[in-house]
């Protein structure tokens, strides 16, 4: 491991970075550095071995690159080893799907995932889920206290079932999320967190970023001045709320 106190690895930005998800790594590294914790950000391309690290970020990707990323990560083995020795993982969208037990390829055929999370994804029958998401974190979640409301943007065609070895992260109040009929979004187990939210998710939910950092550092963190993040969150939550209300009003009008 490097001399820095903390190594943040962005996994395969060349295959899993379609939705600006590399930003999650930047958010983690900066929030550590701003607290005086030396952090190294490693963007690890898919043509070299995945380095050892404390925090791994997987992002969204297209169908073909997603399959390739899953195969390369399985062959490489470093991510599973790191999780086994306590590293934290944030897996977003396509990354969330491949962290699970299985996911569909472009033709809808099931492909093996990495099994870091007990979730299984199949192809959604209907349209892709595209749009703003608001989700309320569930009680007894990964954080010692309650996490604030989650906000993000989703764009996926998967239905993700959360198995008994993992727990859903939140309940959707706007948007689709896991799409399995139980209105849940994301999943977590141990120090692995999966979600469909981008934006990127940690920029819009700094409390989630700090949860991951606190796992990696092993202690609670002093607060930062997140005025700009708060302003962004307020605006996005209000925007999603307006859309939700409009839909609600239309349904009422039809009823």
């Amino acid at each position, binding site marked *: 491991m490097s001399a820095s106190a903390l190594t943040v690895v962005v996994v395969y*930005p*060349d*295959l899993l*970075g*379609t*939705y*600006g*998800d*590399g*930003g999650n790594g*930047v*958010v983690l590294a*900066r929030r550590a550095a701003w607290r005086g914790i030396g952090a190294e950000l490693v963007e690890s391309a*898919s*043509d070299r071995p995945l380095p050892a690290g404390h925090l791994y970020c997987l992002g969204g*990707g*297209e*169908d*073909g*690159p997603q*399959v*390739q990323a899953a195969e390369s990560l399985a062959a490489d083995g470093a991510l599973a080893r790191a999780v086994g020795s306590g590293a934290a993982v944030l897996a977003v969208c396509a990354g969330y799907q491949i962290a699970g037990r299985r996911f569909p390829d472009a033709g809808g055929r099931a492909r093996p995932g990495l099994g870091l999370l007990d979730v299984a994804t199949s192809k959604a029958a209907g349209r*892709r889920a*595209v*749009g703003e998401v608001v989700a309320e974190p569930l009680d007894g979640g990964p954080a010692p206290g309650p996490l604030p409301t989650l906000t993000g*943007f989703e*764009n996926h065609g998967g239905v993700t079932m959360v198995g008994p070895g993992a727990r859903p992260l939140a309940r959707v109040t706007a948007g689709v999320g896991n799409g399995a009929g139980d209105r849940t979004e994301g999943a977590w187990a141990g120090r692995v967190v999966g979600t469909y939210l*981008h*934006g*990127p998710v940690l*920029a*819009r939910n700094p409390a989630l970023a700090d949860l991951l950092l606190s796992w990696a550092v092993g202690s609670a963190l002093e607060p930062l001045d997140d005025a*700009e*993040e708060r*302003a*962004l969150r307020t*605006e996005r939550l209000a925007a999603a709320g307006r859309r939700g209300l409009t839909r609600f009003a239309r349904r009422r009008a039809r009823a």
Partner: protein
Amino acid sequence: MSLTLRTRAALLVTRAVNAVSRRLRLGGGTVIGGRAGLAVDPHLLEHAVAGRPLALVSGTNGKTTTTRLLAEALGAAVVTNATGSNMPAGHAAALAEGDPAAPVVLEVDEGYLPALVGALGPRAVVLLNLSRDQLDRTNEVRMLAGRWRRSLAGADGTVVVANADDPLVAFGAQEAPRVVWVAAGLGWRLDAVGCPACGGRIEFDDGWRCRCGFRRPEPTVRVEDRPDATTEAVFSDGRRLPVDLAIPGRFNRANAVMAAAAAEAMGVPAARALAAMATVGEVAGRFTTRTLDGVEARLMLAKNPAGWGELLGLLCPGTTPVVVSINARVADGRDPSWLWDVPFEALRGRPVVAAGERCLDLSVRLRYAEVDHETVRNPVAALAAAATDGGRVEFVGNYTAFHDLLARR
């Protein structure tokens, strides 16, 4: 040329509705009339271009500029959709105006290209590049490249001018009967690493290749940067032509070489085409200077990471203030996550103001890029906030943010 009564009526309706729309200031007057015309004659485009030399220009970035350069190369009478209205309604509007026998150059939205290639039988198709853009809409650039490929495979009579340096474009053009490959360059590679042919990994060296055998086609035209900062188009037949434009940017010189290759397919020698392009001073307002509320601003457009990668190098060096304005309307893509793919760190040390309807997304991005900034939602007020001592301000907007500011008087 003879048009059916129905097509004539459709063209008349297109013109009339657009004229009314412009008179009532309802909009730019291209889309609504085009829709009306297409309702009268669904085959309006086929009928209106029948027998005329036609070139289509598509790709993620550079469409509007390349269309303009090619139109300039083909001469004064050419009919084109210069406003960037690049879907069939905009095409109908363009065809309803101007000389009904003149050559036609149309900018085409990437998703509409396959249908238009099949329906219109163009003489030339220019394929510039493919990368992430409007994340919520065209979420799969590989799928798009596959659709291009299927439509161009049977395009007899079409010369495809394709960027050999972009693997997705190469995949789209590879099966076409006649291709002129241009080594036009590729700044943004992150969407091209997954091989569109086999799903494997593409390696970039002086060209690019995949282990499946899919590799960069041998270019017949190269864009060569000279040590004295000039650019030449180098043809495989030995011609070396200077590319000397009034508009800035290496990417625009590459666009000009693509346009010159297309001009040759349309019967205009490249040397004459490039000479004509040299006179283009402004394309759809890009890089123009305006004074807004007393602040002089140079207006620039960048709407995705690839475009931003090119543009950052063109900003005035030093500490000239920069206003960045970001919207996320349907035409921009409703998901501005791509802001995190832009290396805004390059703006450190300048006065920067975040503006536009999604200024708060941008302000958070700039915070993590450690770029000192202010946040002022109104773009004109942002210009005033950025200006120091009456100096000029660099304004960069994404699609609707740029066009909104351009429309202000």
